[in-house]
């Protein structure tokens, strides 16, 4: 029998409608029509505004009758809409009194915070119609994608190797050779490359709809158009960026992105999203009305007692994440991406903001972080915090974790950088960083630590070993933007050089960094292109460039094939050895009675690590008999690190009877003998030890 609530009860200007369902929020397909539902804690009145796609004037505006409101939610089902040709927004009326936090203005047409697709920037960097009063338009989407048997992969956290990439940068360069450069579809054509490299998790920089034209400007000197390129400024939390989809011009970005996720999953690669819940694209009191500001300013934003915007994000406003209403929106959003898009994990930009009270004060027990940690739909999702914010809160090692949250380990990045460039007195710190930072995550295990040497924010790995200082002139801010604490070292010359000695040293330093990253306990993350020495020419904050500065030049894959080969061998080595991927911290003890501690520390002489302040040599051995607490057997692994400018003889510890040392990697020798296929490593000629060259890392396997 048909339901009795699928027929119109009202009509206005030829449009038929009836009271809607408050749940779910947003615009949802129902039999015969579309259910529109929106809430505001302080609004007095609400009107649904419908457009034909792209038209400047609305085709109809339907005021919600009083009977259509339940609590603070207005809902309405409108019948017989052309699903693919309809755009919608709202006019919301209420008090305009900024000192009380309210900025209602019914002359504005506002985007639904729950819009699942957003029109207006359908094709990347096509000049929009700036005269359009409604720039970012809610669209209707089909949520019945054909997933077949796909579901999130649930790869154990300790087994992940993350690759951080920007959707457009990854394939926009002409050398990518893909059919649709710079798109989700483009990434799909490069899955083979990612598989060959060996990574099993692709972390995408923001893909929620943003406006690449926001704060766009022309460089005063070069005349280059600069963009909001990275996209850390969200328009709508439920919509994928249309301009990242080859099919965005047809409004099919949802399908295209889902097809990408499905195909990555089919190839064993998880998908993480970099999500930006700390602020929105509406700026401060001078910024535009897009959505939240006009719908419920006081609820969505952290405001000073005078009604101004707190700016903990460094971008003008701060989303009021621990207001219960906003908290629910964030939860709804992540549930939506986990369930509708099969997303495997989320990395939260400036996540410490999520732990601030509406007053701005840090909370010891932030309800949002707790809700996310215990949510049933998100139960198997990985949650990763960038555990600081622009307001001075720095929580690396102390982010409220609830047994779930991992962190971008900034101390790992800084420690490894200092150690690599030969700074003395770093060996003690390195012992912590190489073992999953137990000093920071004693109860959380090594998987709380996302280890990285480079990320989108800062130098690329190539530039880390090629520049002492940032070179951000191209950003148009007089080289004032971007961090100054890079801990980089140019190896003797600032920027590119023909000096073979410097280039050889740089190449070795690149390999040293990759080697340390991939033998560290915890979860390694590689920045897009670092495996083939991608450069940004010393720019450590290339957030506004849609150019060769940010695009991945695929010519590097051939030009730096030796480095790419080294990286893929290292990743394969990590995948091959459980001892490198422990879920719990190593103890330094022999808890299994095997005769060997799970980890032992050494210097140039076995058993004699040099912890002194002048030391630049360190070695460790992982016992294969204690892999994962003795639950499984593995080979022994010995890693010798020499960041000194002279070579040193290293003698590894004695192996169990019958075992021999084999050299898996030696960054001090030329390719292809710098790394071997796991299982096919050559035996160490002199089992008593070997010379580890200046600024080199050797990895041996005992079997």
């Amino acid at each position, binding site marked *: 029998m048909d339901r009795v609530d699928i027929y119109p009860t009202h009509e206005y200007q030829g449009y038929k409608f009836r009271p809607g369902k408050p749940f779910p929020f947003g615009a949802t397909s129902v039999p015969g029509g579309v259910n529109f539902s929106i809430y505001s804690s302080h609004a007095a009145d609400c009107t649904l505004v419908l457009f034909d796609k792209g038209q400047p004037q609305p085709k109809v505006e339907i005021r919600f009758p009083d009977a259509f409101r339940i609590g603070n939610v207005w809902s309405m089902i409108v019948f017989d809409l052309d699903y*693919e040709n309809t755009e919608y927004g709202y006019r919301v009326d209420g008090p305009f009194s900024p000192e009380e936090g309210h900025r209602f203005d019914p002359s504005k047409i506002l985007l639904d915070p729950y819009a699942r697709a957003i029109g207006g920037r359908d094709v990347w960097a096509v000049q929009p119609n700036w005269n359009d009063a409604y720039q970012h338009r809610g669209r209707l989407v089909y949520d019945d994608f054909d997933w*077949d048997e796909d579901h999130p992969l649930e790869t154990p956290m300790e087994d992940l190797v993350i690759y951080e990439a920007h959707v457009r940068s990854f394939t926009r360069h002409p050398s990518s050779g893909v059919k*649709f450069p710079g798109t989700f*579809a483009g990434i799909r054509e490069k899955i083979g490359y990612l598989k060959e490299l060996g990574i099993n998790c692709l972390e995408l920089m923001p893909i929620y709809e943003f406006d690449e034209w926001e704060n766009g400007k022309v460089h005063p000197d070069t005349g280059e158009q600069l963009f909001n390129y990275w996209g850390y400024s969200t328009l709508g939390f439920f919509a994928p960026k249309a301009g990242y989809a080859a*099919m965005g011009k047809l409004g*099919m970005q949802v399908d*295209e992105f889902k*097809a990408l996720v499905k195909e990555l999953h089919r190839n064993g690669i998880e998908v993480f999203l970099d999500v930006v819940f700390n602020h929105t694209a509406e700026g401060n009191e001078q910024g535009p009305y897009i959505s939240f500001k006009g719908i419920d300013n006081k609820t969505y934003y952290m405001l000073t007692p005078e009604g101004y915007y707190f700016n903990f994000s460094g971008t003008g406003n701060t989303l009021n994440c621990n207001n219960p209403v906003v908290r629910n929106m964030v939860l709804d959003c992540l549930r939506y991406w986990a369930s509708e898009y099969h997303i495997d994990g989320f990395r939260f930009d400036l996540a410490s903001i999520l732990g601030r009270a509406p007053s701005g004060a840090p909370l010891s027990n932030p309800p949002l972080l707790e809700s996310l940690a215990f949510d049933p739909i998100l139960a198997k999702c990985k949650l990763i915090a960038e555990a600081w914010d622009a307001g001075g809160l720095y929580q690396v090692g102390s982010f409220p974790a609830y047994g779930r949250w991992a962190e971008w380990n900034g101390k790992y990045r800084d420690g490894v950088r200092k150690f690599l460039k030969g700074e003395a007195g770093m060996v003690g710190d390195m012992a912590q960083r190489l073992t999953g930072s137990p000093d920071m995550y004693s109860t959380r295990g090594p998987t709380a630590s996302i280890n990285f040497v480079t990320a989108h924010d800062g130098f690329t790995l190539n530039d880390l070993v090629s520049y002492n200082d940032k070179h951000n002139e191209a950003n148009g801010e007089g080289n004032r933007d971007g961090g100054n604490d890079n801990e980089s070292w140019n190896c003797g010359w600032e920027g590119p050089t023909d000096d073979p000695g410097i280039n050889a040293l740089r190449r070795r330093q690149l390999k040293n960094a990759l080697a340390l990253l991939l033998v560290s306990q915890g979860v390694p993350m590689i920045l897009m292109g670092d495996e083939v020495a991608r450069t940004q020419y010393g720019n450590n904050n290339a957030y506004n460039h849609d150019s060769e500065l940010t695009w991945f030049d695929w010519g590097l894959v051939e030009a730096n094939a030796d480095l790419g080969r080294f990286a893929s061998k290292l990743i394969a080595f990590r995948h091959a050895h459980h001892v490198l991927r422990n879920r719990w911290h190593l103890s330094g003890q022999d808890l299994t009675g095997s005769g060997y501690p799970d980890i032992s520390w050494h210097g140039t002489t076995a058993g004699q690590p040099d912890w002194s302040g002048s030391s630049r040599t360190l070695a460790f051995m992982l016992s294969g008999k204690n892999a994962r607490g003795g639950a499984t057997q593995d080979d022994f692994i010995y890693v010798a690190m020499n960041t000194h400018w002279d070579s040193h003889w290293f003698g590894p510890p004695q192996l169990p009877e019958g075992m021999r040392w084999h050299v898996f990697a030696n960054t001090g020798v030329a390719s292809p003998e710098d790394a071997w296929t796991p299982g096919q490593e050559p035996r160490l000629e002199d089992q008593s030890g070997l010379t580890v060259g200046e600024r080199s890392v050797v990895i041996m396997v005992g079997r």
Partner: protein
Amino acid sequence: MSFSVTSELKNGIAQFTLVGELDAAAAGTFREAIEQAAASQPKRVVLIMNELTYMASAGLRTLVFAKQKMGASVDIYVVGVQEPVRETLEMTGFQYSVVMLDTYNAAEIENI
């Protein structure tokens, strides 16, 4: 351009010829044709698309509907797609769910 679909059922093969633009307004027509054909439980579905110029999201969904309605054991052949439609199928991953052919020869297919 308006949409039209003609269908024939022969030797257990349901063959549809799609002409014009398969958008939201046209999807219902195609869906009805699929439902009718499904009632006779064909062993194969052949979609001739040489003259299909555009496929919107709703059109794509009708293909998914066809696949699900017919069941996993029924192969779907998509024949002679033009470039814009091919792109839509590829970008959304639907080409993995069907067999894409330039031309269709029933006798040849029978021997595969």
